[in-house]
């Protein structure tokens, strides 16, 4: 899908003779400050496959998605932006500012209509006519609608663009809205706050290498990275199955790395690649570093708290079940829910878990005092 037309092909299609094409190349070269000796290379480059043009829009965001993207380790981001794509517009990195920056956007929309990839970071405020986010005097809403029109593919980076994220948490003061609810096009949702760097790089390169968009689930998420629950791929899962839980921060069980379910971990209801791909070149992921999963790639995760209250229960589905089959089930509740859930999810170990649960609930919480 991304075999973008070269300039030469465009000239041929329009019936413009090669002489005119060479003139165009000369003019372009002059604009770029390239000397005559470099002209042959310009001609060659324009006759061969161009790098796919990419527009990266920024709306209601914290820029953590851009920051995550530049953490990519395979490929590294310099290789992506110099060799793989043509990142024609991104407020975070581009040299041009103001109307020169806006020209980059307009040029790509015009010259590559129907051929550019649109990446969106941030949600779009729709309340009060979109006044809560303007760029160049125009609303985010206006810019998104215009830019999406000619996009060959649209990727919503992160939870803001995929599901609204923090600014859409109650009471959503600005009407923060995810991209797929605004534009009339399929959107590849890559949720997470932020998404994992190498997942972001993989989603883009998946399209470029395999010439097709990755398979998506019912929420528009690439199955490649969002079809497994963090819980089912977590290295601490055996402790869960054995009923061994952290009861208090930095207690003896925390120091042994037991399951963080009772501390509010959202791994059981979160579809993401964290426990497999891990973060920052496989260095760690939240659970490995002692904190429960916040569920940051799930819809409305901010309103499914408080974060340190554990999930009451979730259905006893098997690990081959995807979010499409069961939907997202989230809730918080009393301690009794832990036992109830544990039993339903693991009938075979029912007796063992029951004993463990009783044992752990009888224990006093260890008090780890400070220095003072």
């Amino acid at each position, binding site marked *: 899908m991304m075999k973008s037309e070269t300039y030469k092909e465009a000239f041929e299609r329009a019936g413009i003779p090669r002489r005119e094409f060479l003139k165009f190349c000369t003019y372009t070269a002059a604009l770029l400050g390239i000397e005559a000796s470099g002209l042959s290379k310009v001609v060659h480059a324009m006759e061969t496959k161009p790098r796919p043009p990419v527009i990266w829009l920024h709306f209601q965001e914290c820029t953590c998605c851009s920051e995550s993207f530049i*953490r990519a380790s395979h490929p590294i981001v310099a290789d992506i932006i110099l060799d793989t794509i043509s990142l024609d517009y991104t*407020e975070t990195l581009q040299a*041009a500012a103001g109307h020169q920056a806006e020209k980059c956007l307009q040029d790509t929309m015009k010259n590559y209509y129907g051929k550019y990839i649109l990446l969106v970071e941030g949600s779009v405020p729709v309340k009060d006519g979109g006044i809560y986010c303007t760029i160049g005097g125009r609303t985010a809403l206006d810019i998104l609608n215009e830019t999406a029109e000619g996009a060959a593919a649209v990727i919503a980076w992160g939870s803001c663009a995929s599901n609204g994220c923090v600014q859409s948490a109650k009471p959503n003061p600005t009407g923060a809205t995810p991209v797929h609810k605004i534009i009339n096009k399929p959107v590849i949702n890559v949720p997470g706050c932020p998404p994992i760097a190498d997942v972001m790089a993989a989603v883009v390169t998946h399209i470029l290498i395999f010439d097709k968009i990755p398979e998506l689930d019912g929420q528009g998420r690439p199955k490649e990275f969002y079809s497994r629950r963090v819980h089912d791929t977590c290295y601490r899962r055996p402790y869960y199955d054995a009923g061994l839980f952290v009861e208090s921060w930095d207690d003896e069980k925390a120091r042994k790395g037991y399951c963080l379910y009772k501390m509010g971990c959202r791994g059981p209801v979160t579809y993401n690649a964290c426990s497999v791909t891990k973060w*920052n070149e496989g260095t760690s992921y939240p659970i490995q570093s002692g904190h429960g999963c916040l569920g940051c790639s799930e819809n409305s995760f901010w309103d499914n708290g408080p974060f340190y209250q554990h999930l009451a229960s979730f259905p006893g589905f098997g690990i081959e079940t995807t979010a499409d089959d069961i939907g997202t089930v989230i809730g918080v509740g009393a301690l009794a829910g832990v036992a109830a859930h544990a039993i339903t999810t693991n009938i075979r170990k029912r007796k063992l878990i029951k004993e463990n649960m009783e044992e752990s609930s009888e224990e006093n919480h260890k008090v780890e005092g400070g220095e003072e």
Partner: protein
Amino acid sequence: MARIVVDPITRIEGHLRIEAVVENGVITDAFSSGTMVRGIEKILLGRDPRDAWAFTERVCGVCTTVHALASVRTVEDALGISVPKNAELIRNLMFCAQYVQDHVVHFYHLHALDWVDIVQVLSADPKETSKIARSISRWPKSSPKYFADVQKRIKTFVDSGQLGIFANGYWGHPAYKLPPEVNLLAVAHYLEALEWQKEVVKIHAILGGKNPHPNYLVGGVPLSINTEEVNALNTERLNHINKLIGDAIVFVEQVYLPDLLAVAGFYKDWASIGGGLSNYLAYGDLPTASYNQPESFKLPRGAILDRNLSEVHEVNGRDQNEIREYITHSWYEYEGGNNKSLHPWEGETKFNFTGPNPPFEHLNVEEKYSWLKTPRWKDHAMEVGPLARMLVAYASGRTEVQDVVNDALGRLNVPVAALFSTLGRTAARGLETQLVAHWMKEFYDDLIANIKSGNTSTFNDSKWDPDTWPETAEGVGMTEAPRGALAHWIRIKDKKIENYQLVVPSTWNASPRDAKNQRSAYEQSLIGTPVNNEDQPLEIIRTIHSFDPCIACAVHLYDPDGKHIHQVQFNQRGL
């Protein structure tokens, strides 16, 4: 007279618009506007205070961690929680890693293209670049062949006709002064820094599980220490951190600082441009004893007025007469009137968008023109950031800081007054990075020593259970984001957040005028700046970038009573 509009200001975090009035090639007036708002503070109301760090961390993903740190401290302050020494040290390590990564990225990826002409790279002699590189640093990637390869790569890129992020830059502008060879050096390091920056943040991944947005915890840190266990902060993980710190020190000292000084040497004229305000504010951070002992901070707390470095004023976040916010020119309204100011604990905000309705050409600068409020310290407009921190430390007699600053001034052969400028701001950031990189190593050594002495606690759970909390409590948590003084204020009632307010660095710097029409730092710093070509406002972005804007941080909203939000009606497309 011309009114220049730069919107969007790129290579920053967030959405910033600058309008400047230019007369005879010099800026005579300027207006800074934050054009995006989300309402994080309103969203926090009624929630569990222990969750606030996660919400506020999402205020900014560029200076990730700093809001989480301010937030846990705010709650700890309100509830009287002291964290164990290990937790303090781990927080310091995360703080330092953030600074080093953020400052390096700012210099190379957000600021360098204001000084470095990438097109000039094509005409550089790689042998000369190599000579220059070897004369200023021991960094091993310095052979003529290496620079020739970088040059070839850039040439291939330019020859492709698709300039990507470098398209439509101000290349060839007469304000670019570096020789082609130095441009090549800087571009080579632009690419190296881009690859390196992802390494140092692995410290966050180890200690907080991920970056951006690692995890924090009220009462300590979530990670346990256990040197006899693979599932905790153990010897392997500590070694990894130590390695990353060592690499960071090398990169900062052998790449960032030599480049900074080399580039600065060609732009000494910018040591007398962009000074702006003459008041500086720092809350300070990096406790060596505990957060409750500000005198133990590596970066001291204090305020400087009228550039008088012989006096440092005390700063108190609890004093209702010190830090206050105006909304006179901000799209909000106060119950008590448009010209009042409020301390954050008493903060109130209600949207009051008065136009212009988008799409618009110009802001109505006589009225309200920004989503940023306008903070003042004792009614003074203050600059915050690395320059303010270095000045407060310098004026406080911190010899570590004085030595580094004096050394750099000496090497550039400029007086102390050169610090009060665009160049001074950019230089201060680099010098601070060098200090912080070394302090990171000190904190690491302290952590090892503490563990070795048998102290492995990372959490104080005495007030974790909300049943232990008083009915009401109020707190303030202060820190220094890479971009400057950051504080959160909280009021807790019945175990819930009753009131939460953030006053952040870019609000200090980027805000509109106050009730007395005093300009804030961005606006003031642009006055007197030369503009060579009104169509190519390179000089404006140089000075604005020297502050390292972070606008998502700067804009926030608080509405304590769920008051009516002003409705604005106008024609719109789409929804």
